[in-house]
């Protein structure tokens, strides 16, 4: 079984209880339809598991197949500079069919970012590097498609439809 490399660390975006017994990591691509389908499932699972769950998102954009995926990923990272990573992550997944640059700026505005700062941050190499590093960590961890999930550090190859996924997580 593949292990996540490197383990979840301070560079990651985490949601929920930091010391939860279950740590769920998603490697996702903002333009991938399967990730779009997983998005509400994860939300619902987060709600149901409450503080038993910590959720982490790492970027895994397949840039050639999904031309908007990389910029969308950088946009969410840039939003993290204003502590709004998750707001950006959410609004992007909720508007997956409109992800060109003008729309990304529009979403930044909608979630209340300082747009001028967002635009400057968007161009900073550190955010593009974060996306690249996430991608490499995915490859190193054996990610072979999106979404890929790791539960407590181990790759999860099972079904992620809600009923099944929740049932599995609850047995942990």
């Amino acid at each position, binding site marked *: 079984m*593949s292990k996540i490399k490197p383990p979840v660390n301070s560079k990651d975006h985490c949601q929920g209880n930091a010391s939860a017994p279950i740590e769920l990591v998603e490697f996702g691509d903002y333009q991938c339809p399967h990730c779009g389908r997983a998005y509400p499932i994860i939300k619902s699972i987060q709600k149901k598991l409450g503080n038993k769950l910590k959720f982490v998102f790492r970027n895994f954009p*397949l*840039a*050639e*197949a999904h031309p908007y995926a990389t910029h969308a990923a950088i946009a969410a990272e840039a939003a993290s500079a204003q502590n709004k990573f998750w707001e950006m992550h959410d609004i992007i997944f909720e508007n997956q069919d409109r992800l060109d640059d003008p729309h990304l700026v529009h979403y930044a505005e909608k979630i209340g970012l300082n747009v001028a700062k967002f635009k400057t941050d968007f161009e900073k190499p550190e955010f593009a590097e974060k996306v690249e590093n996430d*991608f*490499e960590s995915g*490859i*190193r*961890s*054996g*990610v*072979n*498609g999106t979404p890929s999930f790791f539960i407590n550090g181990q790759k999860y190859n099972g079904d992620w439809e809600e009923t099944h996924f929740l049932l599995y997580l609850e047995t942990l």
Partner: protein
Amino acid sequence: MLAVGTLAPDFSLFTTPDQQIQLSQLKGKKVILAFYPADWSPVCGDQMALYNETLKLFHKQNAELLGISVDSKWCHLAFSLDRKFHFPLLADFEPKGAIAKLYDVYDEQEGECQRALYVIDEDGIIRWNYLSPVGINPGADGILDALDAINNAKK
């Protein structure tokens, strides 16, 4: 599969309608041979798309990726353009599967290559091999680990 530590047999195959690639021309570079069953099929498409995105990491290690299937050069050309691949696909087309047979990764029943990986070092020696279940995309972690191991062995 051919054993680790043995010399990778040389071959020459069409990669575009008028160009061939010969393995021995790539000496001095590491080579990843990715045998796969068929252009356009779902798992192969995902696997090659993943490798296409991983090229940067392969190149950082001085490695070239070659995809190989029994599809023809024209089929490869269309597949490659459609998926925007930036690495060569080789046509093991005539005689069909000859190179896959040479590398012991030919599926006689299906008449296709198996889903198999070889990593070859700068001197043409096989350093890693992996046969994947046909329905599973093996990812690229094993390849990167093998490339790392070649580099580490030199230190």
